[in-house]
């Protein structure tokens, strides 16, 4: 019985892992294209940003932390003087609400898994939920 349980556990784990790989990797690839189109000129190709103007996307609490906050930021943009990990950035960020739920999920999944970041994927369902609340 114990062997069977272990077997099922391994099977489920592997399936979940493979599922994650098969959905996350394409999402990252799509996200990269969107990043180049919508984010790169301000946040730079390697996510290093611009000191004092456009925040970096490398290992910041905003990027790697709470997904809800991050999704809301991308949907609403920012014209406020809000510190990010103790530093201030002057340029306004345009809201990206015109992007589809899946597109925002993809670009955030790319950002959270690039530039040295290792954070969980963002799904279209999660984006949809936040969009519903920010409207």
């Amino acid at each position: 019985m114990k062997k069977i349980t272990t077997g099922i556990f391994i099977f489920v784990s592997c399936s979940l892992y493979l599922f994650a790989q098969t959905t996350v990797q394409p999402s990252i690839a799509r996200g990269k294209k969107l990043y180049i189109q919508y984010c790169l000129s301000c946040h730079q190709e390697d996510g290093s940003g611009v000191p004092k103007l456009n925040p970096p996307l490398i290992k910041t609490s905003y990027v790697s932390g709470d997904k809800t906050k991050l999704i809301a930021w991308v949907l609403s943009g920012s014209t406020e003087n809000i510190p990010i990990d103790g530093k201030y950035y002057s340029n306004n960020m345009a809201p990206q609400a015109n992007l589809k739920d899946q597109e925002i999920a993809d670009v955030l999944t790319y950002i959270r898994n690039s530039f040295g970041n290792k954070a969980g994927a963002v799904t279209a369902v999660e984006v949809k939920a936040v969009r519903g609340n920010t409207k």
Partner: protein
Amino acid sequence: MKTTFFSSVLFFAMLAFANQSCAGAGSDSTKNSSAAKTVSADKDNAGLKLPAGFGALAVATGLGEARHIAVTANGDIYVKLSSLYKGKSIYFLHDNNGDGKADVQTGFGDFTGTGIAVKNGYLYASSDEEVFRYKLDANGNAVNQTQPEKIITGLLNRHEHESKSIALDNDGNIYVNIGAYSNDCQVKDRVKGSPSINPCPILDSAGGIWQFKADKLNQTYGDGTRYATGLRNVVGLDWNSDINALFVMQHGRDQLHDLFPDLYTTKQSAELPAECMYQLHQGSNCGWPYAYYDEIQHKKIINPEYGGDGKKEASPDIQDPVVAFPGHMAPNGLLFYTGNMFPEKYKHGAFIAFHGSWNRAPEPQKGYFVAFVPFKDGKPSGDWEVFADNFAGGPEYMQPGKAKHRPCGLAQGPDGSLYISDDSGGTVYRIIYTGK
């Protein structure tokens, strides 16, 4: 007993005298050694690449976000910081022994910002909303360091283009940049498809240069005049005493391709618009947000937010630039050279500190150098050229978040040395000429 007392007094008096003499001798010997030591370039020119005959030394390092600088008649340096360093926002640098390196670094002030200038016995310094001044004593030391006079107050700071650079003329006026809190006056800043506002309401209180009195307290908008308009954001500006005129360097608009991909390629968007030098007069209009200067077509072009297509020419009433540089290099410092140390070619010419671009991505970045434009009779007499280069530290560091140093402020020393501040590594450089 009396004798003993007298002897004691005599002994202490002698001791005091000896002490004084020795102290005197000590300070004399310091003076002698200062005369003996001379300013010389660092072995590697502090990492900079310079024309033949020039050398550079790092006067101070690690000062944080060193924005603009001012040098007194004694050769002491004031540095304005845009973030506190050890709790202070202005640093006074003094060299004790004549080798050009700052031996004394004293901080004061708690308001962060960019602008600083020395004029007529006062040190002027700005926050992002106000301008203050400190009286300087005969040695150029700021007195009342905790209680500066507030000259100007209540200037707009809405997050974007917030720094207030300053310059003074020879008639008791101070000029302050009030940057536009916008890229190009759209209803929603930097949002693709968001329409422009026409006429642009920002221009009544920002997007220009305001003139105030240099010695009147607590002035605000109503006390000053809008000297020039249509300037998106100016960080580098200087009064040209040869022809008594204010010159400014504008930061041109961003994101032509991001916002109008059908009209501009990424390559065009990296080059356009020009970073422009303007010679201002009362009432100058340099065109923002309605127009920009295209340095490839050599034309003033209507901004796409205002109906432009990259070709339609703007009103001829808009002022022409004096010099047009490639786009996005971020001119943060301007200085007209009046010294005698550098070769004749440099006299009366303009040095410009280009902080370095970010908005050229995905094309390679540009700037991160100090450029020079020769001038004769107040007009450019030749093409611009790179003067001091390699602040970033190599091609792989030519990116705003990676550059080791980014030139920002410029000042001239009493001996004709050129000083450059760096707000990325916090270095103050001094450029000297040693050639024949």
